[in-house]
């Protein structure tokens, strides 16, 4: 079985982002960029399925600027076999991402697409569901466990009340949640090997996809700031403050 994994290049999760002074966006110049953490989990899951003999080939795809090559090379070092970069300087919305991926999926015909549940920059949580809808495929979102058997998959999903398991026919889209696995680190020899793995480039135009944005960001502001309050010395003092000052208990 063939698996397509998507990886997005985002501002590293450790960076405290700052809103630009002109409120046009957040500062991304000279900021550390990394693979979206949920995509790392997606790559890891595909690699484990390959190690188990369930998957035979892993193709990894990214949509973004030339630097997204680095993100793809990371995925190759972690065990993906080849990479596809759909190169664009535009900021592509999830609808555009899903349309581009639909063309990639149509070309590659994978049995499963594994994506992150959410990009930690836009916090959209949309692209996987949208790709699944465009393909008319079933989806297993927020996955904490994936079991493949007899042309079907069972996906255990993290939901607000606990866990839910759905059974899907293949092909299907899976989106990862935090508990699906713990991603490995790439070893130095594998990083070297990854440099020689194939990386194909194309553009949204090559795929015939219109990615014109449907929404416009009018401004980006810093959120209301909270300030530190006071330190209390004892539990008795804390309880007294909560009762008489804050009046919340």
């Amino acid at each position, binding site marked *: 079985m063939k698996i397509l994994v998507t990886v997005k290049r985002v501002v590293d999760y450790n960076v405290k982002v700052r809103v630009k002074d002109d409120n046009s966006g957040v500062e991304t110049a000279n900021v550390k960029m990394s693979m979206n953490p949920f995509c790392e989990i997606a790559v890891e899951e595909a690699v484990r399925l390959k190690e188990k003999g369930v998957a035979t080939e892993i193709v990894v795809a990214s949509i973004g600027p030339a630097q997204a090559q680095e993100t793809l090379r990371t995925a190759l070092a972690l065990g993906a076999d080849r990479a596809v970069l759909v190169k664009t300087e535009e900021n592509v919305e999830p609808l555009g991402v899903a349309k581009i991926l639909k063309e990639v999926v149509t070309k590659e015909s994978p049995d499963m697409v594994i994506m992150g549940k959410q990009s930690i920059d836009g916090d959209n949580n949309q692209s996987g569901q949208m790709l699944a809808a465009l393909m008319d495929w079933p989806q297993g979102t927020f996955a904490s466990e994936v079991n493949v058997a007899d042309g079907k998959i069972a996906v255990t999903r993290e939901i607000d009340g606990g866990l839910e398991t*759905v059974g899907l026919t293949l092909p299907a889209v899976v989106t990862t949640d935090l508990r699906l696995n713990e991603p490995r680190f790439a070893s130095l020899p594998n990083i070297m090997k990854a440099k020689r793995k194939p990386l194909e480039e194309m553009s949204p135009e090559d795929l015939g996809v219109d990615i014109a944005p449907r929404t416009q960001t009018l401004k980006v502001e810093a959120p209301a700031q909270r300030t530190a309050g006071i330190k209390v010395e004892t539990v008795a003092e804390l309880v007294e403050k909560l009762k008489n000052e804050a009046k919340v208990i």
Partner: protein
Amino acid sequence: MAILVIAEHNNEALGASTLATLAAAQKIGADVHVLVAGSGSQSVADAAAACEGVVKVLHADNADLEHATAESLASIVKANAEGYTHILAPASTYGKNFMPRIGALLDVQPISDIVSVEDENTFKRPIYAGNAIATVQSNDPVKVITVRGTAFDAVAATGGSAEIASVDASGNISEKSKFESQELTKSERPELTAAKVIISGGRGMGSGENFQMIEEIADKLGAAVGASRAAVDAGFVPNDYQVGQTGKIVAPELYIAVGISGAIQHLAGMKDSKVIVAINKDEEAPIFQIADYGLVADLFKVLPELKEAL
């Protein structure tokens, strides 16, 4: 112009998140309709019809919708979308699962997790774990939106008397995806997203057994129990306890963080709480920068004292 709100429910009662979503719909304006898709869900349709401001309820009741899948829900909504300018659902794992599918089927770009309605085309939403708030304008003919419940005051669950129209969903049931089973966390305590008081534990708790100390205090305060990702990953508590950027968003009157350092991903889920208390033995822990009351102490000493003092 009419707005369709997709109800979240358990086939018995309407979820509190739906009432907040209705509030957002009323801010947009126009006639508000509610779609209830479920099985044996008459009481939910009745409850939706009774909500303040609702003028019509579409009720799709079908045995295959007991645990409706995203595939079926999206198909039902698409089939009934004609005439609506806005389609709204709560930004819970329920709404997030199927709403983007609807966006794709209607060829529109959905807007996730709105925290304010500026006008009928313009909304605010947090990005980058709440470190920035974007004002987004949609140019699509239909707006597909999920609503952050903590940002809107619930509408009254009484006062309305909407007509209920039944909808035949038998042609919209997906064969490709089937509900198999669920394992819901059982609790007598209030739901995290609706609780007035929350006490959360982090990695500092050390073990699942030690969460007993948190539970006892929660019982005294009538509080819900939450956790950081680290506590969930370590297996101390189930996944649905996680508060944060990629877990639950909460905004209670009182949030007590115990043995939680205060990573931005955790703060994203709780920094809109009215009063924040932090208990941590490290006085440099970032959680203290946003806490109204900080207690620098060993939680193993302090929690038993707190239980006694309440």
